[in-house]
């Protein structure tokens, strides 16, 4: 019987079934971060339980670390206890930690694939909802809570109910300056914030295939914003080329053997999905959110919608979003003055994201009064960007160039906007108060964010670059 790639990976990792009917799914790679891990370490210690496979477990400091140059444990005082508890927990349990100061420190979802820790067809878990970022290399990943994190540490499996299968077919070729972020935002607008709830999502077809691996990660990263815990793109030659030679990827004969297996990681023709969605990407323009959830999206040439465009049951939420965002229906998005621009997070902080932004910024200046920040997704990305001179481009334009971490995505490290500020951000959530109390967040791609920083207003990158030509 033809099977989906999801079923192949799931069945290949199913250890058995528990008495409560849940499948026990083996987790090949478990990556922890300091904001949640200390609870789990404390729980296991209380229960006298050991970490079953410290060798398959890795840890990063990302959520609470400061981004200022020369940072240490106490640069963000409210992170110090978390950072130190993480260090102690990893030492006590024999877990490799990419600590502050380590050249491989960074956001877990950026670090795990770039080091080749997570691999095609592998299962992966992180106590963070954006775990499925690594679906971009063809891994099946699950975001989880703290109790599940402790469960994985003790057993190396998750007890899960098998999700349904969804395929999202991305047809057509993306236009210039349109990328995975725009595709994902448009898809969330189409399907809604719960459109993929209960499903594992496979992204397929021309536009997904054409995306470089980093963009596939952006696409899979945003899967949770439509409610899906797991999302992935089947691996292909581009994936294998991207992974080859990465420090934790298999080498030599083992690589050759892995490659033979990885080439089988495909959905069979005629395999059945519980839901199929097709999106034509060819006419898509850059997308941006206008509201307070990631489905409240329009094209960059669009306007804040009228409440009548929504079902009656949604209108109160829409009105509340207008009020929070300080926007009236009918207002064009392009041209809105902004106070802040943030480029970073597990969604858009990999080297090609920074290259795209730098290409827009090169030779230009951040508009007066705008605070603009770039926070690389990992220390390795930062190093590579500096080797390519990108930091100079950003700094010369007036951007802050930070040390790696989650930073303004959730503000857990103290990087926050001020009340009332309008911020264009390459992150994943435009929730109220997320980037600081009363901060008004508009999600967009790195290219749109960079163009906005230069213009001082929400800008269509295509016009900025045409204007320069």
């Amino acid at each position, binding site marked *: 019987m033809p099977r989906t790639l999801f079923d192949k990976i799931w069945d290949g990792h199913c250890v058995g079934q528990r008495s*409560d009917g849940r499948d026990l799914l083996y987790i090949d790679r478990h990556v922890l971060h300091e904001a949640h891990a200390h609870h789990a370490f404390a729980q296991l210690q209380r229960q006298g339980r050991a970490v079953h496979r410290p060798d398959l477990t890795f840890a990063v400091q990302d959520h609470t670390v400061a981004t200022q140059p020369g940072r240490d444990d106490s640069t963000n005082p409210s992170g110090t*206890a978390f950072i130190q508890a993480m260090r102690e927990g990893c030492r006590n349990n024999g877990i490799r930690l990419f600590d502050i100061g380590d050249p491989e420190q960074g956001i877990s979802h950026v670090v795990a694939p770039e080091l080749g820790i997570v691999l095609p067809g592998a299962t992966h878990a992180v106590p963070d909802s954006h775990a499925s970022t690594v679906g971009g290399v063809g891994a099946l990943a699950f975001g989880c809570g703290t109790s599940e994190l402790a469960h994985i540490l003790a057993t190396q*499996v998750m007890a899960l109910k098998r999700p349904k299968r969804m395929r999202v077919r991305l047809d057509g070729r993306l236009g210039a300056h349109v990328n995975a972020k725009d595709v994902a935002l448009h898809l969330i607008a189409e399907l809604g914030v719960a459109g993929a709830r209960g499903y594992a999502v496979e992204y397929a077809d021309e536009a997904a295939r054409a995306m470089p691996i980093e963009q596939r990660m952006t696409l899979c990263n945003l899967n949770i914003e439509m409610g899906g815990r797991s999302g992935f793109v089947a691996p292909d030659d581009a994936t294998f080329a991207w992974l080859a030679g990465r420090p934790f990827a298999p080498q030599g004969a083992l690589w050759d053997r892995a490659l033979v297996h990885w080439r089988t990681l495909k959905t069979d023709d005629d395999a059945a999905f519980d839901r199929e969605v097709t999106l034509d990407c060819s006419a898509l323009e850059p997308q941006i959110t206008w509201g307070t959830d990631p489905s409240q999206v329009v094209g960059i040439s669009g306007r804040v919608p009228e409440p009548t465009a929504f079902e009656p049951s949604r209108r*109160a939420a829409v009105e509340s979003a207008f009020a929070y965002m300080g926007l009236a229906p009918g207002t064009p998005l392009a041209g809105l003055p902004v106070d802040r621009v943030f480029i970073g997070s597990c969604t858009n902080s990999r080297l090609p994201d920074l290259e795209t932004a730098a290409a827009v910024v090169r030779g230009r200046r951040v508009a007066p009064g705008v605070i603009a920040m770039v926070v690389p997704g990992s220390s390795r990305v930062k190093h590579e960007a500096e080797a390519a001179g990108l930091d100079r481009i950003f700094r010369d334009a007036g951007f802050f160039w930070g040390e790696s971490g989650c930073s303004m995505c*959730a503000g857990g490290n103290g990087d926050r906007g001020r009340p009332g500020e309008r911020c264009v951000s390459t992150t994943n*959530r435009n929730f109220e108060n997320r980037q600081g109390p009363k901060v008004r967040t508009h999600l967009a791609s790195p290219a749109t964010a960079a163009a906005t920083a230069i213009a001082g207003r929400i800008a269509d990158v295509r016009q900025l670059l045409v204007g320069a030509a």
Partner: protein
Amino acid sequence: MQRFSSHTGIAAPLLKDDVNTDQIAPIMHSRSLKEDYKAMLFYRARRRGDGSEDPDFVLNKPQFRAAGILVTGHNFGAGSSRESAVWSMLANDIRVIVAKSFADIYRENCLQNGLLPVVLDPQDADAFIAWVVVADGAEPFTVDLVTQRISGPGGADIAFAIPPADRTRLLEGLDDIGLTLKHMDQIASFERRAADAQPWLQRTSDSRR
């Protein structure tokens, strides 16, 4: 884990869809390893711009300050996987959330902590919401997991469905890790098979070292 069999409490209507975990349990400016989960619950939603309490927020209203049941719309608990969004409910003695639907990770976090997530179909949910609004905190409701019924002042009981395994886990307060540890033999034999079939997954090594 804390067992759950039945809970009687005031039912507070938070009549919104898509309430996310950033709203339920915001990241506090000053954080510590032992956070004040009681204060964390809806910390910002409870306050106005000047920091004073917002009298219009449902849990600030006198009749709902001691609510034990939260009643809400679709997709409750969307967003971040932070389990503090469940711990902060329990710290406020809210043991039941009745919703039209839950976000996946949030629902799992509820089950892990003995917080009962009740999903009512849209018709029953609307009827229950109307009932809760009329009751207005004057008298409590009881959510009974044994009989799978919600009862309250002056109305007919509403039955609810829950997967039997989830029900058992809550009723018995089962230790989730303990349940899985019974399968360690299977896990060990999986690891042996995987080490032969896909050895690159069963070991990690840094090729630079």
